[in-house]
């Protein structure tokens, strides 16, 4: 980055509402904070504030990477193309269809509406239907039919359509 671009950037930030701006490379890491970001912290009284917040952010970042490695997925791609993961909200067994003879709720390439059933999560003999929280296109199904899944495990990679 040359001096000119840098000054340019600074002028831009200066005029903005942001009171804090960070930018890293490669590959990217941006953080922007408005004044309100700090006011919020103040209101939350008990927690060890600003540093902790940052730490948690870093940690989440790290965690995500770990999970991704664990899950064997390529998040960078996903993130860049605006894809989103739909994760399991419980420990369960994953089923793509309501019964062994039925056809799956969704297939890769399907576009589904908000509220559409995506799969069954069976836990303690209870069949829980997982519904789409937003309209989306199924890009990838990340677990197999009948697979045991843990909390927070990514099940679908989707593109939001809203």
């Amino acid at each position, binding site marked *: 980055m040359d001096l000119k671009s840098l000054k340019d950037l600074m002028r831009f930030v200066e005029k903005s509402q942001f009171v804090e701006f960070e930018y890293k490379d490669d590959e990217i890491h941006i953080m922007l904070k408005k004044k309100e970001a700090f006011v919020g912290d103040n209101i939350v009284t008990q927690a060890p504030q600003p540093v902790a917040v940052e730490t948690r952010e870093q940690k989440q970042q790290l965690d995500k990477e770990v999970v991704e490695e664990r899950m064997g997925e390529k998040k960078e791609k996903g993130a860049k193309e605006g894809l989103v993961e739909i994760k399991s909200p419980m420990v369960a067994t994953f089923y793509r269809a309501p019964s062994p003879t039925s056809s799956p709720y969704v297939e890769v390439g399907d576009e589904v509406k908000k509220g559409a059933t995506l799969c069954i999560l069976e836990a303690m003999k209870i069949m829980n239907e997982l519904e789409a929280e937003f309209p989306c296109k199924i890009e990838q199904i990340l677990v197999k039919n009948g697979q045991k899944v843990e909390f*927070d495990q990514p099940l679908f990679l989707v593109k939001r359509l809203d």
Partner: protein
Amino acid sequence: MFKKILIANRGEIAVRVIRAAKELGIQTVAVYSTEDKDSMHVKLADEAICIGPAEAKKSYLHLFNIAQAIANSGCDAVHPGYGFLSENPNFVRICDDLGVEFIGPDAETMERLADKAKVKAILDENGIPTVPGSSGSIDDESSLIEVANRIGYPLLLKASWGGGGKGMRVVRKESELIDSYRAAKLEAKASFGRDDIYIEKFIEHPRHIEVQIIADEFGNIVHIGERDCTLQRRHQKLLEESPSPVLKEYTRKKLHHTAVEAAKVLGYKNAGTMEFLFDGEDFYFIEINTRIQVEHPVSEMCFGIDLIKEQINVSAGYELSFMQSALKPEFHVIECRINAEDPDKFYPFPGTIEGLYIPGGPGVRVDTAVACGTKISPYYDSMIAKLIVRGNSREEARKRMLRCLDEFVIEGVKTTIPFFQRLLTTNDFINNNYDTNFIDKKFLGST
């Protein structure tokens, strides 16, 4: 023997159970919250299942998710550790339903023993000493005198419907009894609207002494000596030692015997702890803990045994690997609970361990789940390590503990290490001159 154990806990106790299981050749399954993704118990276990977000009630206390994790893992036994679900009979019943062994007492026993009044009544009936008192309110002065004489002085008069010290009177001799009773009645009436009063023995300088017991399915019940846990901060144990430095040999034997008797009377199985108060002469049963305890390594190190392995053995239907006669206390053992807390004010101090040197050498054991770089989460208990040392005498153990506290380097969070360094050099500690109120009075009163 079990093939695979799921450990429904986190932190050092999860690590402790994994260690025992590994040595027995049993596979291990860790469960963890998203917050604990990188923690030691997850790394050491053969498998790990995420059971929820950071908040304990949505993960480590979440019966539903843990139950499904048990089902998914294909384990055949569950170790609950301490805290969390370890004393929840419903969790035991879920394990039963899932066809896996809960490593601990059965659900019925756990439930039954949670009713403290009932336990006290059963033990009373069977001649096990509990804190003596009237079995209900005292209605007239003649029965007051009679009961008072039976219990002995000093006494505590308490308002049956009261609380918070109101209507409470310490009576040190008979001549004060009637006046105090009348005053207490008046005060109770004024404060609570009812003047019912009951009596309890007043234990002025109580020591908290507990006896570790373990029982198998073959009727063997043994004790693993006692632990003196008198040093507490607001009822939280900070330092434990064994043997207790205040028991005479005769009393010690009687205490051990009583604890085993109590376990028999209560029909207890697996590892448990009988807690007593000791007033310098007599001891009184207060409660039973139906799980392994934080301070179990004190007994392990004193007797050279492995309580977790025994728990697993016993749950798997094997006989205890030792008999009472084979158990001899070899050492004096002291444990300090190293918490990530401000050492003066004792408030939790979460953060990241940036530098770490763990003390070693002869007679030293450190149970911890932290390593260099570990994050201490604000969501869970602040205990980050248990430092346990043995010596051939209490004084050798004390000096070794001081040497270890001095060596222990934990950078990035404040810890209770400086507190213990002060505590262990006070004359009161050296001379055993303290009761359960000591730390609250001497250390918290002054700051």
